[in-house]
C-alpha cells in the first residue's frame, strides 16, 4: 500500500484560513466601496444639506442657520422654475430619443453584414469621446454661420439661406440641440443594453413566436421588448440619473442660454453656487435633484422587481 502523505489537516495558525470565511472575505471586499461612498458621497452630501440651510457665500463664509429660507427664495424665482422644467424636458427628451436610436441600432447590428465588427466597435465612439471634444464638433455643426446641418439642408433645397435656423440662438431649437447631443452621447450605451438583452432572449422563444405566426412588430413588441424590459429599465435608470444631474453639455454648448432656455439644475446650481459664489442657494438648487431622482429610482426598481421573470 502506498501511504498517502499529508492527507491529514495540519494545525495551521488561526489566521491561515481567514479568507475562506464568508463573513470576513465579504466585509473585506465591500469595505472600499462603502468607504468610498461614505467619504466621497456621504460627507459632501451632508455638507450640501447644511450649506443649503445656511447663509454661506464665498464672500461671507457664515455658518449661521437660516432654515428653509434658501429653498423658498429658490422656488419663488421664476428662472429656477424654468430650469426645473428644462431639466425634465432635457432628461426625458434625450432618453426617449436615445432609446429609440438604441433599439433600432441594436436591431441593425444583430443582423450579420460585412464589416459588422468594425461598425460595432466604432458605434461606441460617441460614448468614449470626451464630451468636451465632442461638444466642440457639435458646436460647429450648430453654428449660426458655418452650420454643416444648415449647409446640407440648403444644398438639398429644404431651406434657403435666408430662413436658415439659428440652432443655438432660438430657445426651442437650442433645447432640441442639446437633447440631440445628449441622445447622441447616450445611444451607444442604449445599443449595448439592448444588444445584451436581445442576445439573452433564448432563440427557441423567438422561433416559437415565428412559428406561432407572429410578424416583425408583434415579435418585437409582445415578446422581445417585454422580456428585456428589466435590463432596459436598469439602463434607463442610469440614463435618467446621469442626464438629470448633467451639466457638461449645457455648460459647453449653450451656457444655459439663450436667456435661460437651456439652463438645467446641475448647471444652475453650479452657476449660482460656484461661479457667483452663493454657495447656500447653489446647494439648495442642487438638492432639488434629490427627491426627483429618489422617486424615479424607487419607481423603476419596483417596476423591475415586479417584472422579473
Amino acid at each position, binding site marked *: 500500500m502506498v501511504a498517502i502523505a499529508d492527507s491529514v489537516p495540519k494545525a495551521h495558525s488561526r489566521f491561515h484560513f481567514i479568507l475562506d470565511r464568508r463573513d470576513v472575505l465579504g466585509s473585506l471586499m465591500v469595505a472600499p466601496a462603502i468607504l468610498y461612498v461614505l467619504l466621497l458621497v456621504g460627507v459632501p452630501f451632508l455638507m450640501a444639506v447644511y450649506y443649503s440651510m445656511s447663509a454661506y457665500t464665498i464672500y461671507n463664509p457664515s455658518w449661521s442657520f437660516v432654515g428653509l429660507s434658501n429653498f423658498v427664495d429658490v422656488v419663488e424665482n421664476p428662472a429656477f422654475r424654468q430650469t426645473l422644467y428644462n431639466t425634465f424636458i432635457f432628461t426625458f427628451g434625450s432618453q426617449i430619443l436615445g432609446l429609440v436610436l438604441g433599439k433600432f441600432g441594436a436591431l441593425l447590428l444583430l443582423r450579420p453584414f460585412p464589416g459588422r465588427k468594425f461598425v460595432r466597435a466604432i458605434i461606441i465612439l460617441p460614448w468614449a469621446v470626451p464630451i468636451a471634444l465632442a461638444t466642440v464638433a457639435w458646436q460647429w455643426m450648430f453654428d449660426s454661420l458655418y452650420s454643416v446641418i444648415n449647409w446640407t439642408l440648403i444644398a438639398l433645397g429644404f431651406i434657403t439661406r435666408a430662413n436658415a435656423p439659428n440652432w443655438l440662438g432660438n430657445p426651442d431649437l437650442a433645447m432640441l440641440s442639446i437633447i440631440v447631443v445628449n441622445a447622441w452621447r447616450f445611444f451607444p450605451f442604449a445599443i449595448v443594453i439592448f444588444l445584451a438583452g436581445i442576445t439573452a432572449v*433564448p432563440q*427557441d*422563444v423567438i*422561433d*416559437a*413566436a*415565428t*412559428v*406561432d*405566426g*407572429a*410578424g416583425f412588430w*408583434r415579435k418585437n413588441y409582445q*415578446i422581445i421588448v*417585454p*422580456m428585456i424590459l428589466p435590463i432596459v429599465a436598469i439602463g434607463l435608470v442610469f440614463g435618467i440619473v446621469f442626464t438629470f444631474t448633467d451639466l457638461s453639455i449645457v455648460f459647453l454648448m449653450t451656457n444655459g442660454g439663450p436667456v435661460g432656455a437651456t439652463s438645467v439644475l446641475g448647471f444652475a446650481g453650479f452657476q449660482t453656487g460656484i461661479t457667483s459664489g452663493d454657495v447656500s442657494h447653489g446647494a439648495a438648487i442642487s438638492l432639488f435633484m434629490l427627491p426627483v431622482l429618489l422617486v424615479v429610482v424607487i419607481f423603476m426598481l419596483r417596476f423591475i422587481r415586479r*417584472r422579473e*421573470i
Partner: protein
Amino acid sequence: MAAVVTQDIVKKFGEVPAVNGISLTVPDGEFMVLLGPSGCGKTTYLRIICGLEQQTSGDLLIGGNVVNDLPPRARGVAMMFQSYGLYPHFTVRNNIAFPLKTQHVPHDKIEKQVQWASQLLGINHLLDRRPRQLSGGERQRVALARALVREPTALLLDEPLSNLDAKLRTMARQEIKNFQQRVGLTTIYVTHDQVEAMGMGDRIAVIDHGNVRQVGTPTEIYNDPADLFVATFVGSPPMNIVSHNGGGYLGFRPENFLPKSMVEDGAATEFKFRVDRSEYLGAERIVYGVMEGFESKQLITAKLPPAHVDESAIRPGEWHPFAVKNSALRYFDKDGNRTSRH
C-alpha cells in the same frame, strides 16, 4: 390536417450538408418518427418544414401545395421545441392563446379554444401561472397545448421528452401518442431514443448524416433492417454483425443467439461461442463473448431469458455450442446493404 411531403430536400450550411436529400412522405394523420444519432440533421429538417430555415434545394409540400416560399406563419404548422420556448412573461393562458392572437381570432373563440386545449392536456388549473412556476412535465404540456390550440396542419415535435425524467417520460410518451390518435393529427416526432421511436411511431424514418436510411414500421425496422447502420442503431444491445463470405456480413439479434439446447427444432445454424462475461439484469441475462471462426468489431452478445438457462451452458472461458435459427439470420453485402441469403 394535411400530408407533409418532402422531395429531395438539401440544406447546406456553407459547404457542409446538414440535410442531404431527404425524400419522405408523411400521409395525413400519420405519426412519423425521425430517429437518428446526434447531429444527423433532424432538427434542421424540422426547421425547414416549419419555415424557420430555407432549404438549399428540394420541394416541400403541405396538403398537396408547394410551400417552399411561404413564410412560417402562412404554413399553419405547429412546432414544439426541445426546450419548449414558452414565453416567460406570459401566463399559461396567454402562452396558449398567442398563436390564435396572431391570427386575429375573435376573443370568445380564443377563450373557447384555450379551454379546449387545456382540458385536453389536463392543465386548466394552471392557466394563471407563469411558466417558471411549472414543473418540467407541466411545461411540456403547456407547450403541447400551445402547439395544438389553432389546430395546425401538422405538428412537429423536436425531442419533446428529453428534459423529463425517466418515469415522467414513459407517461408523457403514452399521453402524446393517445392524444395524437384522438385528434388524428399529422405528426413528425424527432428523437434519438430508439425506445421512444419503437413505442410511438406508426412508421419510423432512420436518418444518418442527413440521409434517410430506411422508412418502415417499427417491426420492419427491427426485423428487416435495410443496412448495417439501421441494424446496429436500433436494438439494445444492437444486432451482432460478423464478417462473412469474404467481404459480406452476417447479422443476428442477441435474443436469437441461444445455447443450442434452447433452439427448437428446425433449420438452424450452429456456432461455437466462448463466453467472456455475463450480466444479470433481472428479466434477462446479457452474455458477451467471441465466436469461433468469425471476425467482429464488437464482442458478440447473446440475450437470454435467465430462468431458462442452464448455467453450465454459459460458463465463462469455455466454448459452448450456440445456434441461430436460419430465419433470424440477416445478410449484408460489402457496402453494408441488405441482401437475400447467399
